[in-house]
């Protein structure tokens, strides 16, 4: 009874605390001074037609670096927890997995593998559809992060789209092996290159992650807005590799 009363009291307090926020909401008729500054100056200073990208990559570039770092920590944690680090054991498990798939008995996971055998393999339709869609989705993801400075979207969105293409392949055939070396290399190199580009900005332009050390180019062109397309592409590759790694370490076939 007292517990319920406490819950009701807490809820009331929260509602009361946030009431001014809901009460004071009104449609903004004009931009706040900060937003107006971004909107007015970003085109001139950075040459991006997508103002959001100008803010995310350049004005608040350090925050984006922090976000990428948080995502990296999360991906590393998931991989650490989900894959038993010993490569020998993993190899053995993969081998037993393969054997399990062929004859469907013995092996360590044989007893539980039997009941799920029916859905281990994706259907013919799914396999054909995944093979057909994979390059298209992959290309779309790359398109999203390369055009981040021109159209909505960017590195994070494009990276997730790429990871979902890989997810489709894994759905179609769970035992599909991914190139872990390629994934790790892509992830590490793009992360290092991101910081490297930031340092180039520090030495050749106004500050860390300043994209203006490259020429701004013509407004609205693909190769414009300084280093912003490069930075967003690196973020896209990094996010795509990390999320692919998470999906890969979470899957379980047998």
């Amino acid at each position, binding site marked *: 009874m007292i517990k319920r009363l406490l819950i009701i009291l807490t809820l009331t307090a929260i509602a009361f605390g946030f009431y001014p926020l809901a009460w004071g909401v009104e449609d903004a008729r004009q931009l706040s001074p900060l937003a107006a500054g971004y909107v007015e100056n970003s085109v001139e200073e950075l040459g991006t037609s*997508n103002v*959001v*990208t100008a803010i995310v990559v350049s004005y608040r570039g350090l925050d984006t670096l922090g976000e990428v770092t948080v995502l990296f920590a999360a991906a590393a944690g998931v991989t650490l927890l989900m894959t038993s680090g010993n490569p020998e054991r993993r190899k053995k498990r993969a081998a037993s997995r393969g054997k399990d798939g062929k004859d469907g008995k013995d092996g360590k996971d044989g007893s*539980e593998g039997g009941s799920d055998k029916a859905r281990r393999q994706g259907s013919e339709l799914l396999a054909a559809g995944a093979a057909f869609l994979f390059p298209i989705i992959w290309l779309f993801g790359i398109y*999203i992060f390369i055009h981040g400075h021109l159209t*909505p*979207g*960017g590195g*994070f*969105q494009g990276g*997730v*789209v790429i*990871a*979902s293409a890989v*997810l489709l392949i894994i759905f179609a055939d769970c035992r599909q092996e991914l190139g872990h070396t390629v994934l790790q290399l892509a992830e590490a190199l793009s992360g290092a290159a991101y910081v490297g580009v930031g340092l180039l900005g520090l030495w050749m332009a106004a500050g860390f992650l300043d994209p203006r050390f490259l020429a701004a180019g013509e407004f609205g062109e693909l190769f414009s807005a300084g280093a912003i397309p490069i930075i967003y592409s690196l973020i896209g590759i990094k996010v795509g590799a990390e*999320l692919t790694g*998470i*999906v890969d370490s*979470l*899957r*379980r076939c047998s």
Partner: protein
Amino acid sequence: MINSILFVVLALLALSSAITAVLAKNLVTSILAAGFVSLLASVIYLLLSAPDVAMTEAAIGSGLSTIIFFYVLNKVRRSGRHD
């Protein structure tokens, strides 16, 4: 006007689906309802003219994280059976 009516309808749908996610007995229903909240939220972001956020929410919130929840649910159930 139509925009704000649509907004209210979507918000109410999102709220009810969030409550479903909390109260549902079946975990699969909960996961699907949580994904649906994200999907509705991404439409709301689009209505509020924030396509960048809408894309992120649709791709991560309703796409990838729903799948990851299903994977984790699968794993948890399996390890529960072992004990």
